[in-house]
């Protein structure tokens, strides 16, 4: 969708993922899209160096999110929302429908 503009399919995936899920880490994003880890890590690093993303450490995991101080964030968000509107509904649902409420450790399904 935005690949011609962003120059990378993985960049688009990362930005859409973080737009919906707010935060995520490299392995989680690569698993979600069924893609290799290394290119996702590379694009995360590029987007962070460019000020588009922030990152923070939680334990041994580096979480990324859209940088609220990125000067073009208010323009980027609607662009991502529009791109998401063109995604097939099943993919969109997979991205948006995620359990966020807590779940006790060891609780059976």
């Amino acid at each position, binding site marked *: 969708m935005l690949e011609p503009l962003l120059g990378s399919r993985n960049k688009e995936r990362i930005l859409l993922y973080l737009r919906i899920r707010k935060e995520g880490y490299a392995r989680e994003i690569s698993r979600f899209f069924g893609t290799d880890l290394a290119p996702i890590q590379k694009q995360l690093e590029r987007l962070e*160096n*460019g*000020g588009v993303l922030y990152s923070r450490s939680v334990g041994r995991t580096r979480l990324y999110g859209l940088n*609220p*101080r990125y*000067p*073009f*964030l*208010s323009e980027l968000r609607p662009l991502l929302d529009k791109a998401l509107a063109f995604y097939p509904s099943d993919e969109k649902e997979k991205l948006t429908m995620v359990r966020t409420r807590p779940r006790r450790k060891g609780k059976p399904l």
Partner: protein
Amino acid sequence: MKSIGKMSLGELGAFVCTQLRKQGIRVVLSGGACVAIYTDNRYESLDLDFVENAPTERTRIVEALNEIGFIEKDRYFKHPETDFIIEFPAGPLAVGSEPVRDIQEMEFSTGRLSLLSPTDCIKDRLAAYYHWNDAQCLEQAILVAGARNVDLNEVRRWSAAESKSAEFRKIRKRLSEAARKGNNS
């Protein structure tokens, strides 16, 4: 000319800024280093964050800094004679979502430093406070308000543009009192 190891933060900033300017690279000091300069080091910083005023190839910056002995490591530049660290955060030069219009110039014996104005310095610190809830940055903004002439009406307007009017209302009194005390001293 002083050796790099003996330069203060402002002197080093001016030296680096001037060296880069000679190469046609225009940068502006932002972040905590501006707080240190405007408050005469009541807040101490070892980081000099320069933002490019016009996009420049990274290799040109690396070459210009190598010429004065700064070596890049993990996107930071270090010099063997000083603890100060130079970094070039991604541009554009902005406070929140607005471009910086008013760039200040300060003369030092080592050169001329381009930096954020005191009012934009406060906005820059408040952006970190608003978005990251960083209490230290709020204190830095208050220090600058007490040390320099600042336009708090402009800070209020900018806060509203950042959708942070409610947050500004909570801190307005502290900023105003600091500014008033600063004007009376």
